[in-house]
C-alpha cells in the first residue's frame, strides 16, 4: 500500500485541482467564425468601437506589437452588430471582453 501512496495523492490532487480550475466559456460550433481585430494600444480602451476592425471569416494570420488583445472571434456576423455588443458591454479588460456573450479572445499580441 505504501508504494501506491504517492500515486494516490497525485491522482487526488490532480482531480481536485481540475475541479477547481475555472474554464473559459465554450465556443459555440460552426457559427463561431467571425474575427475582429483590435487596433488600439491598450486593453483599457477595448470598449472603443472605432478601434475594432472586421477580419471576416478566414483564419487570421497573426499580429505583433504590444501586449494587448489582438483578435477575438465572435458570433456577430457584421462589424456593426459586434460594435454594438462592445458598446453596451463597455469592456476595459481582457476578462470583461471575454465575458461578453458570444465573444472569445482568439489571440493576443506577444503571447
Amino acid at each position, binding site marked *: 500500500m505504501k508504494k501506491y501512496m504517492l500515486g494516490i495523492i497525485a491522482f487526488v490532487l490532480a482531480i481536485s485541482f481540475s475541479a477547481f480550475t475555472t474554464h473559459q466559456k465554450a465556443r459555440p460550433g460552426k457559427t463561431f467564425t467571425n474575427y475582429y481585430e483590435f487596433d488600439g494600444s491598450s486593453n483599457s480602451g477595448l470598449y472603443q468601437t472605432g478601434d475594432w476592425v472586421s477580419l471576416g471569416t478566414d483564419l487570421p494570420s497573426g499580429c505583433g506589437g504590444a501586449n494587448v488583445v489582438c483578435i477575438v472571434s465572435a458570433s456577430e456576423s457584421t462589424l456593426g452588430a459586434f460594435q454594438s455588443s462592445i458598446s453596451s458591454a463597455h469592456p476595459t479588460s481582457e476578462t470583461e471582453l471575454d465575458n461578453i456573450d458570444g465573444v472569445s479572445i482568439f*489571440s493576443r499580441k506577444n503571447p
Partner: protein
Amino acid sequence: MNRNKIYFINLVAALFILLFTYTAFSKFLDFRNFQYTLGKSPLVGRYHTMIAWALPVGELITSVLLFMPRTKLAGLHVSLLLMSVFTLYIAYMLAFAPHLPCSCGGVIRWMNWKQHLVFNLFFTGLAGAGIYIHKNDSERQPNFLLQ
C-alpha cells in the same frame, strides 16, 4: 542509496500522474474549447477531433501505467515520448505561429509559449532521469520497485 532512488522514481511518477491527470481532466471539462483551439493549429488542425479525444485518453492511460509498479518503467517511457512530442510541437508553434493560443489543459494554457517550452523541457528531463535511474538499478536488482 537504493531507497533514495526508489523515492526519486516514485516522486517523478507522481509528478507525471499529477500533470497528466490534471491536464486530461481539464481538457475533458472544457472539451469544446480545447477542440476549438486545437482546430486552429496549423500543424494538427485537420485532425483536431481525433487528437482532442486521443490526447486526454492517452494521458490518463499513461497515468495508470505510472501508478502500477510493474508498468512504471513503461509509463516513464511513454511520458518521455509524450513530453518530447509536446516540446517539439511547442517549438514549432513558437517558430511559426506564436500568435495562436495554447490548446493545453487547465492553468497551463495561461503560460506563454516560451514559459511552456521551459516547463516541458524540465519534465522531459525528469522523465529521462527517471528512466536512467530505473534502468541502472533494475539491471543490478530486477523488480527493485516492487519491494
